[in-house]
């Protein structure tokens, strides 16, 4: 399968702290690729670099042939990023927020409407979509933001802990949405602490710890390699 994102030797320093110590992986077209690891492993930093929020200290990130350092705007046009614990403008109504975000990507009014319809369908907030975001629950905000992230059908959706802080029902709905969109040809790069979630969602997984990739492969490959029954065990054994 064709790789749309290639990360080679990615390093990132925060002052003297080396958060990423030369990371390599690739994301293929139509696959869900997950980064799993403990807190402080470097997952968010990796996603932030690819989302053009942080500049890499060293290494290469290429998306559809474009180099991140030279063409960050090409990345922004084609990717969509959902940060962990992201918020939305509390004074805007849900629908107005979607319209505001859609206008950055759409080339016509019709396209704006198409994006909004798609987001409304993903968020599935009913009539509440017409109310101010400040009145939403955390789960509703997350679904709205997921709708926003996926409404433009980006070539790559970067989702940082997409079900973070959600209850079981909302988390299940969000997972279903992600799976459905990937089935439509969308590539997804996500991170999570939740290994069961990753196992359910991902085609391939990279185990990350202390800024390094320990191993990568499909959940089945990794479980077979480490003779483990689930990804939690895989991770524990990979750390040894």
């Amino acid at each position, binding site marked *: 399968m064709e790789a749309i994102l290639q990360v080679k030797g990615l390093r990132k320093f925060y002052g003297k702290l080396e*958060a990423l110590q030369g990371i390599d992986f690739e994301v293929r077209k139509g696959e869900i690729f997950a980064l799993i690891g403990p807190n402080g492993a470097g997952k968010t930093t990796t996603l932030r670099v690819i*989302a053009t929020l*942080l500049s890499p200290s060293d290494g290469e990130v290429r998306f559809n042939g474009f180099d991140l350092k030279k063409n960050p705007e090409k990345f922004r046009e084609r990717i969509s990023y959902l940060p962990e614990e992201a918020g939305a403008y509390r004074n*805007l109504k849900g629908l107005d927020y979607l319209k505001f*975000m859609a*206008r950055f990507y759409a080339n016509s009014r019709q396209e704006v409407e198409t994006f909004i319809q798609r987001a409304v369908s993903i968020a599935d907030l009913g009539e509440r979509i017409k109310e101010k975001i400040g009145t939403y629950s955390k789960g509703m905000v997350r679904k709205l933001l997921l709708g*926003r992230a996926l409404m433009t059908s980006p070539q790559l959706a970067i989702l940082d802990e997409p079900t973070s802080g959600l209850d079981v029902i909302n988390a299940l709905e969000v997972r279903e949405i992600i799976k459905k969109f990937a089935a439509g040809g969308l590539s997804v790069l996500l991170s999570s602490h939740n290994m069961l979630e990753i196992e359910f969602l991902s085609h391939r997984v990279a185990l990350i710890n202390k800024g390094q990739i320990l191993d990568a492969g499909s959940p089945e490959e990794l479980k077979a390699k480490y003779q483990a029954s689930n990804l939690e065990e895989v991770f524990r054994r990979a750390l040894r």
Partner: protein
Amino acid sequence: MKKFTNLLAKEIRELITFQLLISLVFMVILFYFIGQMAKSEVKRAMRKQKIAVLNFDSSPFSQELIQNLRAGNFEPVPLQAENKEDAIEQTNNSKMNLLLVIPEGFGQGIENLELKPLETYTYLRSLTLMANRNAAVFNAVLRVINNYLSNDYLAKKIPDLDPNKIKNPIKSRNFVLVKERMAEGSAEQITGFITSQSMFVPIILMMIIIYSSQMVISAIAMEKQNKTLETLLTVPIRRTSIVTAKMLGSAVVGLISAIIYMVGFRYYMAGFIGDVSAAIKSSNLGEIIKSLGLSLSPNQYLILGLSLFLAILCGLAMATILGVLAEDYRSAQSLIMPLVFLVLIPYFLSFFADFNSMSVPAKLLVYLIPFSHPFLASQNLLLGNYGSVLGGIAYMLVFFAVLIVVAARIFSTDKVLTMKLRFRRKQVVL
């Protein structure tokens, strides 16, 4: 451009909250009521005031004095009392504030030049500015009577001589010069009028800069606190557009807020100082000011507007940089303080100090603050010092350009997310 207007519209919509509108309306209503109260107090003080009079003298002089009090807007109320103590008590019981005691032989004393002093007793029933007005007016009436009596006395003694020539042997005519123009008038009167006319300029400027800066600093801090900045920074729009939209949005809302604020403030001030245009109509001050060229022409207003606008932009650019340093909304409120001080320094100096008489280092320090220039611009324009005004504009332009480059640079790098000014230990999310 569409993306920019989309962002600008969002910024303005985010800033114009229900709370902001409520606070602005409340402020206007509050100022209006305070102004109205002050106005009614002033009116009350200007009404005919009662003055209790205990007259132990029956000469024509004392009668004339009482008549003159009527001309001075007093209503003399004769008291029937045996002594001063009773008169004081009666004055208090009848809620009058002023008592005049004319001693026995007052008129005779004037004729013989053996003066017997009048006594006045003033009740201080409140400590407001208007409370003491009666006594001041009374003293003014006495001054007029004194002048009249002394003129009368001198005219009787030296019939062929104008008494004023003896009392005021030195006459003066005052002229004021501004550049090459000259007019007869008092410099004190003219500067007093100009100050009263331009006192709103520094207040407006201070309000707009502080309002807009607070908005931009809060807007950035709120984006950080609500975790919306990260999303915004990944959408396909130039980072400079994000910075500019935030600044422009805040400037627009700040300007509207300041105008509304000033409408309220005008009501408030009108209560105290009254209608200035009515005052100028009643004197020849307007003619003097016109002949001295001390009124701004449309072009000068344009230059003043440009100076004000650049000062606002400088404030917004500084606030943008400070906003990046803020961790959340609360810390943003503390970070605005340095900027507020930079505005307050020239603001207070414009009221209390003369920039021209300052020492060179102090002057340099004041000129380095970009906000000083519009504070100085109106008087420099009136006095024809275009060099200072245009120099200030050029300085603010350079200052703004440098700040905007710094702000855009910060927004284009990791610093927009990693730069923080805090006293706790720095944490990095990996």
